[in-house]
């Protein structure tokens, strides 16, 4: 089966890869590019562990073909922190103990970042509905929601400075 050559941008860096037609973006990230931060929990778009941002929209990388990435710009969990400077969402997840096993965490981090990129001051309800596509079985969501709301507050304060 003929492989497709794809040129794309991942976490700000130009990347080229070859992929088979049925390979998802998640397959490519994990198995071809060694970016294993995005997790595979269901392969059906129901758990959100593979969430990435594609041209500004968050998507499940398990529901996008690798070949579709041609010319797009993708942000994965590996691209959320700037060097050794954690994103406020990451910092607040740590401070609020918003993770237990940590497997769903990359998807939540990306989804929360996408939320705060779009909405600087989300309510608890908006946050919960935005994150409804990210399953967490450990935390009961309480500390995750608190972490995201706190990160939003920090980002608002930083923006006001």
């Amino acid at each position, binding site marked *: 089966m003929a492989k497709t050559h794809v040129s794309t941008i991942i976490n700000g860096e130009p990347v080229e890869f070859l992929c088979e037609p049925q390979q998802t973006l998640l397959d490519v990230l994990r198995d071809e590019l060694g970016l294993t*931060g995005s997790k595979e929990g269901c392969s059906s778009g129901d758990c959100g562990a593979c969430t990435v941002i594609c041209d500004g929209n968050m998507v499940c990388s398990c529901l996008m073909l690798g070949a579709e990435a041609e010319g797009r710009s993708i942000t994965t969990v590996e691209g959320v922190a700037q060097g050794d400077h954690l994103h406020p969402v990451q910092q607040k997840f740590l401070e609020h103990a918003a993770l237990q096993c940590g497997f769903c965490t990359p998807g939540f981090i990306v989804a929360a970042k996408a939320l705060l990129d779009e909405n600087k001051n989300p309510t608890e309800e908006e*946050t919960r509905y935005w*994150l409804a596509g990210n399953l967490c079985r450990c935390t009961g969501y309480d500390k995750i929601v608190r972490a995201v709301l706190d990160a939003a507050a920090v980002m608002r304060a930083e923006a006001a400075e």
Partner: protein
Amino acid sequence: MSYLDKDALKVVGTRPIRPDGVDKVTGRANFGADMTMPGMLWGKIKRSPHAHARIVSINTDKALTLPGVKAVTTRADFPDIPPEKRVLGAAPANLWDLSRNCMAKGKVLYEGHAVAAVAAVSPAIAEQALDLIEVEYEVLPHIMDVEAAMAPDAPILHDDIFTAGIEPRPTKPSNIAKVVRFAKGDVEAGFREADVIIERRYTTKPVHQAYIEPHACLVSVAPDGQTTIWSSSQGQFMVRGYTSRIVGADIANIRAIPAEIGGGFGGKTIVYLEPLAYMLSKKSGRPVKMVMNREEVFRATGPTSGAVVEVKIGAKKDGRITAAQTVLKYQSGAFPGSPVQQGCICGLAVYDLPNALTIGYDVLCNRPKVAAYRAPGAPIGSFGVESAMDELAHELGIDPLKLREINGAKNGTKAAHGPTWVNIGYQQTLEATKAHAHLKTSLGPNQGRGIASGYWHNAGGESSAACHVNEDGTVTVTEGHPDIGGSRASMAMMVAEVLGVPFETVRPVVGDTTAIGFSASTGGSRVTFAGGMAVTQAAQKVVEELKKRAAITWDISPDAVEWKDGKAYPAGANAGSFEPLDLTAIAGKSARTGGPISAEVQINAQGQGPGFATHICDVEVDKETGQVKILRYTAIQDVGRAIHPSYVEGQMQGGVAQGVGWALNEEYIYDKDGKLENPGFLDYRVPVASDMPMIETVMVEVPNPRHPFGARGVGEVPIVPPMAAVANAIADAIGVRLRDLPMSPPRVLAALDQVEPMRQAAE
């Protein structure tokens, strides 16, 4: 030495950032499926499409000729395990059953049962090869329902299983693998004394642990048998031991490396993939990676039992219970071993019962073999008992919380299953419940409030720990338990407390099976208790060694040195006058005072201390659609001592959310052929973020004196009360009692439809 005085603690009880946290928020942490090896192959499993069938033949020839396929394995490659080798150490699993669960022998016993596996150069080729494996089946009648499976004429799963626990030993094989029974006093006499008797029947459906990380492993077997297993599990020593027996290898030849684990909740306390990957690697000579997809996780890994729970409770008008009896029938799935015994114990353990009887049936059926799920068995029995208590309270006209105060277990109470309680905190959870602001808020129309309690006995057992003082004065602590929810943090905190050093200077590591002594699995809420005891003892030994080294430096007796706030001091004026030596100073000179400073400890921890909890739940019911919304939830629990309070709260909140899912929407749905209809997160409905409110927590601290810091297990008891708390709240909201889980919208609406006409007629 103990550290029970909370006021004297500097690190324990604070909320530092977990040592493995940055890895997990940046995507660096490596879970089961994240590892690769050069030359690695991909393994996939051929599974049974039938619920019950005899395997007539398996032909793998075509699959083997597909280019890219490097190995195929079937049952023929796996050894039979003789009776004397079916149990390993103190581990509970029957390894012969487990072996046949990993790879069917003779018969498939549930849809999804593994019959063959292939390894190929890509996942796509491995998938293709599965289609080329030809399996001929003779389909047999299957049995799914627990009571139908108990009937004398039911299709029998195993013709060599005769009901254990009854005398005389039966002569006919049965699907009832075991009967358990606990009794105290005389229940018949107790029921005769009662003014009111409640007798009810409750049912629950199988529910899955639904950890988000599917099972995954990478196994490399060298030609000389030296083996590396990288896998996600609740115990690297479990993986090593179980795999060794199932494949017929020596334990010493296997090095099991614990990957980060993406949730387990009991479901990863056994193996599914590792023996198959081992066999494929052995046959192909290459490393083999196997990763389940979500469908496989649902079809072939452990849910917990669906069950029937019959409860009878008698009480005097003043609320004193005179007798209680439960009969529990639990599905075990394809092999014996449901958690029915724990269900029998835990349901009644909350109360001081003069007369009690509980009988449990462990029942085989054509479903995946159940696996442990958070407080295995307890939530099922307790759903019945705690619902019946609410019904009793209603019948007696006594407040449900008051009824629990009257009958609740206290220190000195002899539990129905035998032990006499010491140092338990159940009554304290009731006091905290009574005092909580939640109970003082008012409710609107179609809203209701329920309370329920729960008990879990927690576990101790075998743990190893090592504490190494590094040359620069930092400390490495190695534990033998996979960190499933933040235990690295609590281990490092206890060590930092004992050594008197900052938390940040202690680096915790989960060791592989060659790096640390044997440790039982992460499960039974045992790690902070038993693992914590081990690391504390290791740190205490290090302190003794540090004192010795200071003594050598000062040329005084070690008895004349005391360790305080991370420094060695001369113990009083007689010891001499020396500048204190801190850990860094002593570590820097350790080569001159006797060499490296380390301690390793192995223990079999006892005295874990039981856990009790009481929950309050408010719901609102949409009477036109039957939908139940959780409005407010408060979990109150005796946690002994919260080492890292945030992670204790997290355990409580997580348990509640799982319990709410169990209560409202989670269930296995099978068609008439015994095929699972909802093997995915779309229709197996775990709670999502928008389903839940914030979950308030109250940590009652009744220290467990058997642990140096007073800790008791905290992870499991919070899943015990929620189902009854929700059911009791629904009953309060709409006046209708739901006794069958899940209390999904169609069930709630059907229940309302039944009573509404009666109610209207009455009006």
